[in-house]
């Protein structure tokens, strides 16, 4: 059979939509999450209740919001260990400023500002000083959490001034039966899915993660891009921090402890490649959902929560192993 060159060039890959979907890691993770939900609905009579689903969706939204930011960092070839610390810093800042009588919008801007400052310092040290992201954000994890302790003097904050009820509504309330953190997540996920695929910023994030040298040589402003990526990650942590305060109704300084690990786990289960250049918003959300469903199911099934880490750990390894196998097969 002879085909002309033009035909060969314009040919797309001979793969059906189904086989393309099935070759994506996030599809299988999604399937696992759906099956787990189905099984739980059948086994327990508590899972599929409105109250439990409300809790599940709200709980997973916090992790998922930050996982979207983390996926962006990972896609650019970096890592951000300071997100848990950014959460507590943002929470303490909004708590303290509202307690001092500031309105909720001003306090929220302070909180987001504090988180963005964390991201800015991370980004500058990584992009302009050239330090490894792991080290910089590890240092920041310690520093930002310490700042939260200093600012709050390690006291619990539960009085939020004149706008007390607005804050509680913001994080703990619901509109049309949908918890607000979930609404925030959906908005963020839709915007970022679009940004990843259709904007130059998104394209450049993936280019930097794929081959940083190439990105530099083609004139992409790699340093500025990196700063923006770490600031975005810190921004998601700041937003999650504010919503968590509203949900819990108080700020304690252990908020967000070890959260960075759960967030990274969610991103990796969702298909983000720690070597950079790969990851999707949908994957981050599904990864976070799966982790929450595991957590929730262990509680409902009456299994000790000590098992939680074992299950999540297995899922991380299985998800990545699956990806490795797929890649080895496609190399043949």
């Amino acid at each position: 059979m002879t085909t002309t060159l033009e035909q060969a060039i314009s040919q797309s890959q001979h793969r059906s939509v189904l086989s393309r979907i099935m070759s994506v890691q996030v599809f299988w993770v999604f399937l696992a999450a759906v099956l787990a939900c189905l099984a739980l609905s059948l086994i327990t009579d508590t899972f599929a209740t409105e109250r439990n689903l409300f809790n599940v969706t709200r709980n997973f939204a916090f992790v998922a919001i930050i996982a979207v930011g983390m996926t962006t960092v990972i896609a650019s070839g970096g890592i951000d260990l300071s997100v848990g610390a950014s959460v507590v810093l943002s929470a303490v800042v909004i708590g303290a400023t509202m307690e001092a009588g500031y309105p909720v919008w001003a306090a929220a801007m302070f909180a987001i500002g504090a988180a963005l400052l964390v991201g800015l310092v991370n980004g500058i040290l990584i992009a302009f000083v050239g330090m490894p992201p792991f080290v910089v954000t590890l240092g920041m994890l310690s520093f930002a959490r310490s700042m939260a302790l200093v600012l709050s003097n390690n006291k619990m904050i539960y009085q939020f001034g004149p706008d007390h009820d607005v804050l509680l509504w913001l994080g703990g309330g619901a509109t049309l039966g949908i918890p607000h953190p979930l609404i925030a997540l959906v908005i963020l996920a839709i915007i970022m899915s679009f940004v990843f695929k259709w904007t130059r910023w998104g394209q450049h994030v993936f280019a930097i993660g794929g081959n940083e040298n190439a990105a530099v040589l083609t004139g992409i402003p790699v340093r500025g891009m990196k700063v923006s990526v770490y600031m975005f990650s810190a921004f998601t942590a700041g937003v999650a921090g504010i919503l968590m305060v509203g949900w819990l109704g108080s700020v304690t300084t252990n908020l967000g402890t070890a959260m960075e690990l759960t967030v990274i786990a969610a991103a990796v289960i969702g298909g983000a490649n720690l070597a950079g250049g790969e990851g999707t918003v949908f994957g981050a959300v599904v990864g976070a959902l799966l982790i929450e469903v595991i957590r929730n199911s262990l509680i409902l099934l009456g299994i000790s929560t000590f098992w939680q880490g074992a299950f999540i750990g297995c899922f991380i390894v299985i998800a990545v192993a699956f990806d490795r196998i797929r890649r080895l097969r496609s190399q043949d």
Partner: protein
Amino acid sequence: MAERLTLTGISKHFGAIHALHDVSLSVGKGEVLGLMGDNGAGKSTLVKIIAGNFRPSGGEIELDGEPCDFHHPKEAQRAGIEIVYQDLALCDNLTAASNVYLGRELTRRLGPLRIIDYRMMHRRAGELFAQLKSETRPRDLVRKMSGGQRQAVAIARTLLSDAKVVLMDEPTAAISVRQVAEVLELIRRLRDRGISIILISHRMPDVFAVSDRIAVLRRGGLVAHKATADSSPEEVTGLITGAIQAA
């Protein structure tokens, strides 16, 4: 043949080290110049001067008869000098079209937003590959491509910017014999479009297969600059090693 790029008396020293002294050579429109020399002979220094990475310590560069003084690689690029790097500088995780347009993505308006125009990028990249007679599909990920296709992507990038001079650094190193033939064919296509090519290579047969002229550097000095037809691999080998002083 009109000269496109002319170097006159180029020298470069880093402190007391003389990397290049008094190198004069030229490449014409639609001509392939094979630049040869042993490691440390000054090839990469010369390339970096042409590409604007270094400024020469002495001598002049003329592009289409206009004197140039590049302070930055961007300036050289804007003037029409492109480099295809040895490692090709491609992003494996992106498609061929995205790589061709990397850093200068086509966009279109969508309300108040500027979004990437994938349809146009795929079409134009496909046209470029067709011009290069390379069977490279714009939507394929670079990760899945052969060495020859990857070269086509890197070269298509230079076509996009209407380059006048393309510097190619060891394009045939580390690829299979069949792909070498493909890459040499790509070089001929570029030449046929009137682009001047400076081919830096260690591989004698490749240089003799495509170049019109050959320049040989030895220890920072130019020892030969002559038509390929008037030379031979034996002579060039002698010039590189120093067995033949100059030709």
